[in-house]
């Protein structure tokens, strides 16, 4: 118990240490809460428990090697991280990616968005005391991870999106597998909504909690579902289309209440939109065609060619021993990750290793709004607010 001098005189408040091992902080977030009874006076987030220096490590790797590091930032959205990094390097190189590879990329990141939102929904429901939803969500997420395993050989750290295209040709029978998933999904979303949307406890815990007006959210650089739940239809897929998103038809769900309940509704609506995008991408992906750009010296050659052509063998050797060197310059690319605007800034000095790689993690920036959301609210609402900001500590701390 500490005594704190306030404007109105001496008040007795208590400082409570929430985290870094608290289960509802979704990782290793520590929040120092100053409490007056059960009301929050101030909240001070303390970060860095998961800082691994990924940006520094990237400077010591070639451009292609750094892809595997990006997987490990936002571990619920590894494909999105691969995508933003590859888009930035491709922009730096001035590299065009074949349409077929772009569509596969779109399909994969939208499946990733669904799986990320499912983990969010399941864990948030668990935080709020509804355990069943978690089991349902992880059941469907498992199906997505199985699809990733078939495509990339890996369930989570896929490194599937590479500079100039994608790593592997889509596997035999992928169409049936993805189709089975998208056909099943709408009914499953209805199932979650039946459990939650009109549930009185769920509404009681979320409605009116964690409110911030849209102007404050923009001033605090908040993006993603949190901003869209405040009525600002800002989505990078629409505002600054990348990877052929301009060819897809989908809506940007918004709400105006800007509370935790509105953020829940926006995310559920986004899952439905993502299912629509995956369907369209399936139609667009042809059965044959290039999956990598024709850029010798940057994209590794096919193994068959290496056995017959000397140039291919030389390029292969050079790519994996020395890498490639983009011309000096900078590129900043943003994509819409499940959590908001994910940016990647890459600067080259003309050497085979990047001069600087910086990631603008939406979790990191969005978390700034937490102290403002919880001020004056109950301690139980802190859990709801942290949950609906949807942070991934791997991305916050990098």
């Amino acid at each position, binding site marked *: 118990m500490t005594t704190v001098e306030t404007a109105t005189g001496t008040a007795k408040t208590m400082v409570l240490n929430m985290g870094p091992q608290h289960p509802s902080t979704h990782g290793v977030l520590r929040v120092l809460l100053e409490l007056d009874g059960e009301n929050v006076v101030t909240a001070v987030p303390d*970060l*860095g428990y998961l*800082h691994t*220096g990924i*940006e*520094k*490590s990237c*400077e*010591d790797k070639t451009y292609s090697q750094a892809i595997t590091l990006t997987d490990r930032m936002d571990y619920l959205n590894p494909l999105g991280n691969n995508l933003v990094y590859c888009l930035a390097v491709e*922009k*730096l190189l*001035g590299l065009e990616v074949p349409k077929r590879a772009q569509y596969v990329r779109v399909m994969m990141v939208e499946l990733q968005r669904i799986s990320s939102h499912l983990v969010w929904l399941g864990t948030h429901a668990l935080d709020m005391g509804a355990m069943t939803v978690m089991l349902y969500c992880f059941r469907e997420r498992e199906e997505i991870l199985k699809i990733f395993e078939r495509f990339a050989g890996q369930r989570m750290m896929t490194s599937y999106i590479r500079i100039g295209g994608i790593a592997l040709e889509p596997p035999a029978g992928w169409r049936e597998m993805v189709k089975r998933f998208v056909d099943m999904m709408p009914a499953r979303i209805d199932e979650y909504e039946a459990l939650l949307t009109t549930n009185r406890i769920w509404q009681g815990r979320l409605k009116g909690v964690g409110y911030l007006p849209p102007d404050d959210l*923009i*001033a*605090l*650089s*908040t*993006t993603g579902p949190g901003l869209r739940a405040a009525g*600002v239809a*800002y989505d990078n897929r629409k*505002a*600054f289309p990348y990877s052929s998103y301009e060819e897809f038809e989908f809506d940007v769900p918004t709400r105006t209440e800007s509370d935790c309940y509105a953020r829940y509704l926006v995310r559920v609506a986004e899952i439905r939109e993502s299912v629509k995008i995956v369907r369209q991408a399936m139609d667009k992906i042809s059965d044959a065609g290039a999956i990598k750009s024709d850029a010798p010296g940057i994209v590794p050659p096919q193994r068959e060619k290496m056995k017959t052509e000397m140039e291919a063998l030389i390029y292969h050797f050079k790519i994996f021993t020395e890498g490639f060197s983009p011309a000096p*310059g*900078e*590129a*900043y690319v*943003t994509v819409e990750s499940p959590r908001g*605007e994910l*940016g990647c*800034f890459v*600067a080259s*000095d003309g050497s085979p290793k990047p*001069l*600087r790689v*910086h990631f*603008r993690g939406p979790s*990191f*920036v969005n*978390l*700034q709004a937490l102290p403002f959301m919880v001020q004056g609210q109950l301690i139980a609402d802190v859990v709801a607010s942290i949950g609906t900001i949807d942070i991934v500590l791997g991305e916050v*701390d*990098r």
Partner: protein
Amino acid sequence: MTQLANANAKVVGERLRTWNAQAVAEIIEYRGEITIVVPKELLRSAANYCKVTPELNFNLLSDVTCVDRFPIEPRFEMNYQLVSIPRRERIRLRTNVSGQNPAVDSLMPVWPGANWLEREVFDLFGIKFEGHTDLRRILLPDGFQGFPLRRDFPTEGQR
């Protein structure tokens, strides 16, 4: 579409020039991205001008980051990525900071969201932000010595 965006972005440079002839040191265009280099002294007022002018309306500060060009002097380049949500436009403001007692004006008075982004740069590059209300280390422990993202800091750490 990209070309149209570029034409608009060039207008931003021209407007800044008419506002203050000294405000634009250089306009760099590379891979369809516009970078406006602003003198260090005018950074905050130029940023504020970009935000409050209704025709520009850069209301969101997307990112703040630094590039260390060691051993070139001035070694640090501060990059600010601005977004105008209503006009769907992006622009980058840049200012050069010398390696001797590196310091630059904080943009917190313009965009409160600069808070953590600048703390991160302070933590990892050791650049001071004047006018920042809460300049503490954010990712590294308080007692950490050195600034790991500087180019003269070894990747394996200092022994």
